[in-house]
């Protein structure tokens, strides 16, 4: 195939790559035009999402890139989520005196990496995608340079992220060594046959590497520290889209590359999922800082998504996709609330800071309540539907005990969400809060309205789209 024929399957990636470079040049020559760069970033991301939505299905670059319903579904979700991150983050940084044009460019590059992860068809593009988005995220985490905590978070994220990349690469090289190919489709021919211990060894390392990226326990250690230290809008970004990208990658590797070893990876996923649910639920109980709390909540939620994926069926992949999309809305919305709140210029980050918030800021308090109840899994909020899909898939696949344990774990986690709600609604006010910035406030409210009640209408479409996407992964 010619390069242009190949590109037909990769227009969104091309738009983002070229666009990021162009914005970088624009920023270099007109460093004051940060708003313009930001607007350009949003437009490019939305354009990439549109291009992804209409791109033809097929395989490009010798199998390195896949364009199918699954890749398209994930890419659209990733690009839209990234587009939200720019208006949420850039003004936040500018209000804190960090007036630089790199923020949108880095978001674009991260989105490009995530897009590659979602579309990768072999180990090379997998690794390039993972690294590209990780490097961009490391910088974003440390972008608030004058803040010691943010720098610490960036460094921690980088060191542990590099370690996980090492594991990933080691696993990939083992797989390549034993399979003789980097293409998932070729690996699938070898995996599952007799005497493939080395291949499984490689798979386990690869899974560990991805587990790091999705912050599944026991590879979650970095998450609370990084969430706590990193700037809040950046957390809103990297708690959402990258998780979806990595989960889709997970599904891609396992479903396309190791279809016949399903029995093996299912066990690993169930273990990862249940440990994550347990760690997320129990360790979250003692947290006072909301960003740490939500880090543990995200660990628990990834646990649920992993349980869905562990079903090893198309229904399981569908449940994971629905779960991740709904979870992305939830977590972005929650961090948008946090980004909107401050008291005398100081960020409000602990549960006690939120005391009596309902009297001070009823809108944001209501939005945070909605996101908390959703994360708790209470019907009819979006988080319930996410869990509904996941547990239904797990039960249909016969994972009865893991599903019940997961559900019980959600009751434990309910305690800390209720603690937050209690603080906002029951307690006396901890003082007046500053006027929330428009963009964070608006994003929080819109996402809250989606979480309840719009989700009940949107699910019909999401169900169909995710179903189609899931069938692209080739599982029964």
């Amino acid at each position, binding site marked *: 195939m010619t390069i242009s024929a190949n590109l037909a399957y990769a227009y969104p990636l091309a738009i983002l790559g070229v666009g990021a470079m162009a914005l970088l040049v624009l920023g270099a020559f007109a460093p004051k035009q940060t708003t313009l760069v930001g607007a350009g970033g949003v437009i490019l991301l939305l354009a990439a999402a549109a291009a992804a939505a209409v791109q033809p299905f097929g395989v490009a670059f010798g199998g390195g890139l896949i364009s199918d319903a699954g890749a398209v579904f994930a890419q659209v979700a990733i690009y839209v989520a990234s587009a939200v991150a720019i208006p949420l983050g850039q003004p936040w940084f500018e209000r804190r005196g960090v007036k630089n044009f790199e923020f949108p460019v880095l978001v674009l590059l991260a989105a490009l990496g995530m897009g590659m992860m979602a579309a990768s068809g072999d180990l090379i593009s997998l690794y390039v995608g993972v690294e590209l988005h990780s490097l961009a995220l490391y910088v974003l985490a440390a972008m608030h340079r004058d803040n010691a905590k943010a720098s610490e978070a960036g460094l921690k994220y980088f060191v542990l992220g590099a370690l996980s990349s090492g594991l990933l690469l080691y696993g990939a090289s083992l797989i390549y060594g034993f399979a003789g190919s980097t293409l998932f489709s070729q690996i699938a021919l070898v995996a599952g046959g007799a005497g493939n211990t080395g291949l499984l060894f490689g798979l386990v390392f690869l899974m560990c590497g991805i587990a790091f990226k999705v912050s599944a326990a026991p590879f979650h250690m970095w998450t609370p520290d990084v969430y706590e230290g990193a700037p809040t809008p950046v957390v809103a970004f990297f708690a959402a889209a990258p998780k979806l990208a990595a989960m889709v990658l997970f599904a891609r590797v396992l479903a396309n590359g190791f279809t016949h070893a399903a029995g093996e990876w299912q066990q690993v996923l169930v273990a990862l999922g249940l440990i994550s649910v347990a760690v997320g639920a129990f360790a979250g109980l003692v947290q006072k800082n909301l960003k740490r709390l939500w880090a543990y909540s995200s660990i628990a939620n990834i646990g649920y998504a992993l349980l869905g994926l562990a079903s090893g069926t198309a229904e399981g992949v569908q449940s994971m996709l629905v779960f991740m999309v709904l979870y992305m809305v939830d977590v972005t919305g929650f961090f948008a609330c946090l980004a909107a709140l401050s008291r005398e210029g100081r960020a409000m980050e602990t549960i006690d800071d939120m005391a009596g918030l309902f009297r001070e800021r009823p809108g944001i308090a209501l939005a945070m309540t909605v996101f908390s*109840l959703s994360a708790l899994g*209470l*019907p*009819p909020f979006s988080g*319930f539907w996410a869990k*509904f899909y996941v*547990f*239904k898939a797990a*039960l*249909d696949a016969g994972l*009865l005990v893991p*599903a*019940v344990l997961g*559900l*019980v774990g*959600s*009751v434990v986690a*309910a*305690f800390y969400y*209720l603690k937050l*709600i*209690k603080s906002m*609604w*029951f307690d006396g006010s901890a003082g007046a809060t500053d006027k929330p910035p428009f963009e964070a406030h608006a994003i929080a409210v819109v996402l809250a309205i989606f979480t309840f009640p719009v989700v009940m209408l949107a*699910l*019909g479409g999401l*169900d169909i789209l995710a179903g189609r996407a899931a069938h692209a992964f080739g599982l029964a």
Partner: protein
Amino acid sequence: MLLSLVTFAPLVGVAGILALRLFGKADDPKTVNAAKWIALTATLADLALAILLVVQFNPNDPGFQFVEEAPWFAGLNYRMGVDGISVLFVLLNAFLMPLCIVASWKSITSRVLEYLIAFLMLETLVTGVFCALDLIVFYIFFEFGLVPMFLIIGIWGGARRVYAAFKFFLYTLLGSVLMLAAILYMIGTTHTSSIPELMAHHFDPAVQTWLWLAFFASFAVKMPMWPVHTWLPDAHVEAPTAGSVILAGILLKMGGYGFLRFSLPMFPNASQLFTPLIFALSVVAVIYTSLVAFRQTDVKKLIAYSSVAHMGLVTMGIFSGNAVGEQGAIYQMLSHGVISGALFLCVGVIYDRMHTREIAFYGGLVNRMPWYAAVFMLFSMGNVGLPGTSGFVGEILSMTGTYRASTWTAILAATGVILSAVYMLTLYRRVVFGTIENPKLATITDLDWREVAIFAPLLISTLYLGVQPNSVFNLTSASVDQLVRVYQAAIGG
């Protein structure tokens, strides 16, 4: 359409109050007053709709009526309908809500708008529970109801409100997630979430056992049955008066309704298998919690424990497996909804005046409050099950039904009637009779017109149901007979 109207009409009130909140000041007395009238109008309108529903209800049809169906997504449907078992609970809910609004008229002074919104939402959600004919729709109403109640206890409750609210929420949630697992399993294996279809589906007896236990976990907590009843006294003591009325009057009935709607028709073999367990737990509940009630020093806690004991009779009647027992159980639930609601309102009357619920604080109220004494007396007698009150009909029938299924259970449970007389009469004597010892009571005033207006409908219904039980049985018997027939056929009896 009528069912959806009954269910969602209170939300119109919510919208009205929200509009007030947006355009007016939340603490402005005018706004607050307008909000109260909106809430009262909405609940009264809903009551009118509920009455219309009961009037139009065809008592000879044992199946579901007023059925509404609309496809949703992923094979789920918005499906509503009522039969003879559920229709009166809809009425009970609509009946109690306006009383709750009136009862809170003066006693709630902070964040009144939110309070009214919580009650109106609760009304919608509770009605939805009794009308839902789709498992997931049912689950949504069932679970979402936790939130307004959590807020009602937590914001407007007493000193240990936070503890009580958390306990209430987490206890119920733990039970419910197990039910959710069972619901998902049922949908996965039968590919339908329609309750009527599932009632006709025959599950393998081994599977039934597990599904039954999962539903039991949820309904036993809700009911509440001994030994998972401990959240109830805490929740009652801390909740504001109207919260207690709703909790005892209607929320607990969701447990009994769940047994009737799910456990018996869907898992008949398992129900039969576990009947001895239910009987044992019910007997313990009746005797043990009656004794516990006797030792309470707090009026509200005493009535809360007495609720647990009365619910013991209900579970017994439900699992007796004969029409008499089922009818008795339903009757007992309706009657208890009225009487326990009224008793909590009685407590509210003196609590509003003296701000304590300690039994020892009171005494000799009859000297200053003759009308109150008379009203309290009547409801106490109703709680004891005196013939002529609605309590008697429910108790006698559920015990008769149980007697047919298990003689010893009925005999042991009958002691509960004596015990309930012991603790209620003791309570009444200590609070109402005697001379006024406590100087603080010297100025206590009798019922005002607002309180009379609250108690009058409750009094009338207690007495009416006591002498005219057929008005209820006419509506319920067709559905109950069918339930029993199907149940007996399934267990081969």
